[in-house]
């Protein structure tokens, strides 16, 4: 008979779990946390400066120009939205599939989703060039007619998709956290902690008549989040696919983008989990090597899906017989942006193949490096799609070359400052493992287990 892997190691009891998960929020932060937090904060300040310059002086500071009108902002927007997808996949889809191992990582993955989508949301606003008019994106009664937004535009669909995604992810995350915040409230020793966690816990007391409705709502939200997460990156891909540009106008885009999003998101989760295991040694019992190995398998699988999409695009470009399409793909691989294309292929298709070897799948340093490469590759994938299609379209007189400026690098690097600052604050003030979800799992795989 197949044996279940142990989900929570160390033969823990419920009290010990509360103790270990709550303690990072209850004791002063360690040197390790501060050592991450200060650089992250400095990077955030740098980000504010770069954004301030771009918004105050103008979009001309960035590389976008004619003919490449979509640059780093759009590339990095798609990059961050994609990262977010792993959190919802882990929290909602794996919940519906009854994958019990998700309980060790779902809270952190959901937090990652929310912070990644927050990072993503800034980029389209900056890209508009006049972010102070961002509210024009919303359909509100106005004195210009009223002139409403164009609901036929994929860019408008994006406004709805991303804001719905952020809201629902936040509700799902927060609702899942209410019982755990109640634990923090009941453990609070001083009145300041009681004052913070008391209202946040909504007065939750864990009676079964409440658990009944809570579990039902959790299931509903999981069921809603599942099609939602698939729709969000599909709609992001429509931004490209609805345009008539060679290399963009393809029906493969929605599934291809979703697979890529899960791929990059899982890579980000593994990267973060490697760091959490170093910073919080007690987490090794909750995020075991088995968890990481499973995630690495998902990374390898989705990596191959992405590789299949690359191959399929090439095949269809040739098979369609459309000369513009054929040119675009040959130009991607061997034109002026050949380096970006091959960074993408090697990081996304070749390196993850190392996960065929069990020793590499279970080696922390190896997976840390590979998952970072995956995310580099996924940023370049969006760069290749956006820039190579725009820089050489139908008319050679309309061709040009896009170069990144200091400000392009600045917003890209700076957004990581924002992400890590938020993520580190989350680790500091909220329970990083879903205690009320992992406690029923402690018997799984044990001798006394079910």
């Amino acid at each position, binding site marked *: 008979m197949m044996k279940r892997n142990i989900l929570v190691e160390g033969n823990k009891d419920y009290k010990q779990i509360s103790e270990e998960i709550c303690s990072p929020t209850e004791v002063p932060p360690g040197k390790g946390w501060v050592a991450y937090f200060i650089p992250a904060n400095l990077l955030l300040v740098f980000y504010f400066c770069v954004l301030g310059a771009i918004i105050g002086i103008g979009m001309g500071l960035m590389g976008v120009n004619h003919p490449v009108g979509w640059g780093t902002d759009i590339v990095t927007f798609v990059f961050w939205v994609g990262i977010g997808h792993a959190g919802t996949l882990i929290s909602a889809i794996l919940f519906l599939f009854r994958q019990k191992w998700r309980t060790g990582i779902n809270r952190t993955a959901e937090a990652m989703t929310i912070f990644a989508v927050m990072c993503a949301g800034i980029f389209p606003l900056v890209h508009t060039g006049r972010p102070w008019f961002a509210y024009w994106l919303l359909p509100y009664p106005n004195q210009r007619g009223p002139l409403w937004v164009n609901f036929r535009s994929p860019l408008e669909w994006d406004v709805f998709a991303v804001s719905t995604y952020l809201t629902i992810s936040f509700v799902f995350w927060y609702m899942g956290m209410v019982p755990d915040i109640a634990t923090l409230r009941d453990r609070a020793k001083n009145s300041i902690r009681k004052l913070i966690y008391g209202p946040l816990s*909504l007065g939750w007391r864990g009676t079964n008549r409440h658990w009944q409705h809570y579990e039902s*709502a959790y299931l509903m939200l999981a069921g809603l989040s599942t099609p939602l997460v698939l729709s969000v990156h599909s709609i992001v891909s429509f931004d490209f696919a609805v345009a008539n540009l060679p290399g963009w106008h393809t029906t493969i885009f929605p599934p291809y983008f979703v697979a890529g999003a899960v791929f990059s998101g899982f890579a980000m989760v593994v990267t973060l989990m490697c760091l959490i295991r170093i910073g919080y040694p007690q987490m090794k019992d909750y995020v075991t090597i088995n968890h990481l190995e499973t995630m690495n398998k998902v990374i390898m699988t989705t990596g191959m899906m992405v590789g299949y999409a690359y191959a399929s695009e090439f095949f269809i470009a040739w098979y369609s017989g459309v000369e513009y399409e054929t040119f675009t793909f040959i130009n991607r691989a061997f034109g002026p942006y050949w380096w970006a294309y091959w960074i993408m292929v090697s990081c996304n298709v070749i390196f993850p193949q190392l996960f065929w070897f069990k020793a590499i799948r279970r080696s922390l340093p190896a997976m840390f490096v590979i998952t970072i490469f995956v995310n580099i590759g996924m940023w370049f994938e969006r760069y290749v799609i956006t820039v190579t299609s725009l820089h050489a379209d139908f008319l050679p007189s309309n061709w040009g070359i896009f170069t990144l400026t200091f400000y392009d690098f600045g917003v890209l690097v700076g957004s990581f400052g924002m992400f890590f600052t938020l993520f580190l604050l989350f680790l500091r003030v909220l329970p990083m493992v879903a205690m009320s979800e992992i406690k029923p799992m402690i018997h799984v795989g044990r001798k006394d287990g079910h």
Partner: protein
Amino acid sequence: MKKLIQKFNGPNQSGVVGFFEDEDKLLEAAKKTYEGGHRHFDTISPFPIHGMDDAMGLKRSILPWFTFVGGAVGCAFALWFQWWTSAVDYPLNIGGKPLFSLPAFVPVIFEVTVLLAGLCSFAGVLVLCKLPRINPPILDPDLTSHKFALYIPSSESGYTEEKAKSFLSGIGASDIRSFSEF
């Protein structure tokens, strides 16, 4: 101030509470309490316990109706709103497309459906559980961490403190005590 909070939280109840070692014992106890004719009792645990709803004789939660109504309203509103703005209030010919271009309206209809369904599900929890409550009395701070309890409120028919206490000790509870507000 205290009176205001009391009013916001709703009335408290008194009763008798007993503690159990783990979730299996609590489940067993809940079954026996239900069989003993109690209908208003409740269990308290740090996590939801599989099978407890049946043991307590609870009917299925009506929460999915909140989700359904939210989703239906969101769907209908998004469809109506896009039709009204695009075809009625300020009709504009965009790319020669029909004023009411239904296929292009589907993504926004979907997103608004999910948004309202999700928000209504969360609102449903608050309504059905009568949350939020401000600083409500708790029976034991460890009940959200590692303890399991069952309480019989005074609203139970034929309730006396003595009877409830002896019933709880009969089904194996420990640390039985009466409380004046919960």
